[in-house]
């Protein structure tokens, strides 16, 4: 691990923060500032160890990531934001690159918001899957939270009109700046979102240049004290359906379940699935608890486990996550991934029998 470089970055960042800390004056109304500047810095040192590799690559991948995010607002109209990722990956050689996750300018005028630049936009309501993935970055069911924050946005012009519970969004995204391997097209998309009787509902329509038009519907709803349900339905050549639910126990343990069935068309198909295969059916089950406060000394610990299964070929990947906070800025984590299934199956074709990631994260 490149601990020397990481420690230097962390020390510099901590010094900057200490210099910036000031207590607000008490007992006086705070005048509103016209300018607003926010920042965050994440640094991650991650090491992944592969077991029983079936391809000739080293068994250890070391990744050092530095992720600064900056936002400047000149109230009430203008905003500028950027989020970058600097990466140094070490397999047998070291490979470095800088990714622009987001970089955009925004203008707010009355009920309208305009934005131009690169932006991560997610309209789907699913945790692990999405049927209405119009402008969304790729959703990987075995990594639903993008644990290393590597997703990049789409380059787009977007206009929002928000009035009461109603919101209309128009977006046009170009694929000109995206890598050709991403297989993106220029996309025009429209969304109408409304909160009515507790249903947070969206109607989505769009068109990929050179592809078919598509339409979709998403919703979420909370029922009682403990249940949330969500779903997506989309039509892109054929129908794709996602249904999910979340349940929270009085002790704070959260369970999430999702069922997803996409048509076997290139847009939805995973590379491990044959074009001749029928419609696929997937299941996602998750159980987790943040802060094990009930056990003395364990409240800094978050635990989670989930499984993603392809019901057609009965392959699955089981994942276990543990995260422990240390002080205000540091945390360590363990991420264990175990695929299972026939060698030709969706998850069984993963070229290792287990992947164990350990790492340390610094946040400022």
């Amino acid at each position, binding site marked *: 691990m490149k601990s020397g470089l990481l420690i230097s970055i962390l020390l510099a960042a901590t010094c900057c923060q200490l210099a910036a800390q000031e207590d607000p004056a*008490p*007992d*006086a109304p*705070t005048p509103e500032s016209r300018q607003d500047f926010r920042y965050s810095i994440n640094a991650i040192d991650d090491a992944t160890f592969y077991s029983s590799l079936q391809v000739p690559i080293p068994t250890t991948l070391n990744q050092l990531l530095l992720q600064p995010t900056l936002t400047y607002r000149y109230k009430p109209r203008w905003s500028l934001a950027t989020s970058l990722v600097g990466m140094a990956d070490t397999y047998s050689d070291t490979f470095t690159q800088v990714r622009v996750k987001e970089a955009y300018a925004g203008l707010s005028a009355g009920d309208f918001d305009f934005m131009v630049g690169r932006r991560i936009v997610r309209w789907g309501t699913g945790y692990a899957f999405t049927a209405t993935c119009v402008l969304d970055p790729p959703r990987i069911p075995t990594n639903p939270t993008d644990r290393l924050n590597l997703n990049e946005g789409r380059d787009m012009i977007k206009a929002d009109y928000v009035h009461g519970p109603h919101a209309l969004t128009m977006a046009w995204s170009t694929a000109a700046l995206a890598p050709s391997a991403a297989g993106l097209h220029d996309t025009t998309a429209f969304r109408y979102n409304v909160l009515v009787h507790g249903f947070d509902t969206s109607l989505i329509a769009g068109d990929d240049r050179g592809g078919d038009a598509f339409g979709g519907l998403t919703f979420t709803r909370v029922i009682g004290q403990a249940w*949330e349900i969500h779903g997506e339905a989309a039509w892109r050549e054929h129908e794709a359906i996602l249904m999910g639910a979340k349940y929270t*126990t*009085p002790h*704070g343990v959260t369970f999430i379940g999702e069922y997803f069935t996409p048509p076997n068309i290139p847009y939805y198909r995973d590379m491990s699935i044959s074009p001749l295969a029928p419609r696929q059916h997937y299941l996602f089950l998750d159980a987790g608890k943040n802060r094990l406060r009930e056990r*003395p000394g364990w409240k800094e610990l978050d635990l989670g486990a989930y499984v993603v299964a392809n019901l057609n070929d009965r392959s699955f990947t089981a994942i276990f996550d543990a995260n422990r906070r240390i002080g205000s800025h540091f945390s360590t984590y363990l991420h264990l991934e175990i695929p299972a299934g026939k060698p030709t199956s969706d998850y069984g074709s993963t070229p290792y029998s287990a992947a164990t990631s350990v790492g340390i994260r610094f*946040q400022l």
Partner: protein
Amino acid sequence: MSNINCALRTFLLVFFTAFLLACALVAHAASLAAPDADAVLKKADTYRNGWPSYVLHVKITNFESDKADEEKLYEVSQKGTEKTYVEFMSPREKGEHLLMLGDDMWVYLPDTSRPVRITPLERLSGDASNGDVARTNYAADYTPVYVRTEKVGAVDCYVLDLTAKRKGATYQRILFWVRVEDARPVRAEFYLTSGKHIKSATFDEYMAISGRTQLRRMTLYDEIRHNSHSVLEYSGIAPRELPDKLFYQGRTDRF
């Protein structure tokens, strides 16, 4: 005659003293008569919601065995009793924010890049829960009933029994002590639907801002893990014109 006069004077003195005592008791009883619980609760809410539309900063310090082990910072924007937007400012939570619209609640997490709908039970997590930060207008969420008047230390207090009247309420029941003199909150006990006493609070310190008295510091005691408590310190309170679109659940351009 002198004996009669003496007896008469003694009788009058006793009667007059008894009359004065009776008047004092009646006046005291009148002062302790059952108050209008709704009015008292609304007045008590003004110590934490001084303006119809305002912003404030909350610093939460969590203590374990009287030792500070974690500090969190929030910026809260509130409009009316139905709209609250909380921006998480501490290093570990930067980029997260919370939106409450009536009974509906979303949390935006940077790693999911979308607003995630959360259930009422999820808002209870943490020493000081999301609801403790974002849901401070008790008159909108609870039905109050006057229980009794009693002293907390040297202070005469009304005890109000608050029962949740809507799904968005953070707790099922709150026992709320407010000062008789001015309805200023003094202490509270929080209960779950199961009847379990989960937390207690003391309202420790107030400050004057633009002629209004506002809460500066309160302490939340964990009644399940008795060695744990949280201190909530309020600062930067100021009235603001907040646009409605700040409280739109679909916006993801917040930092």
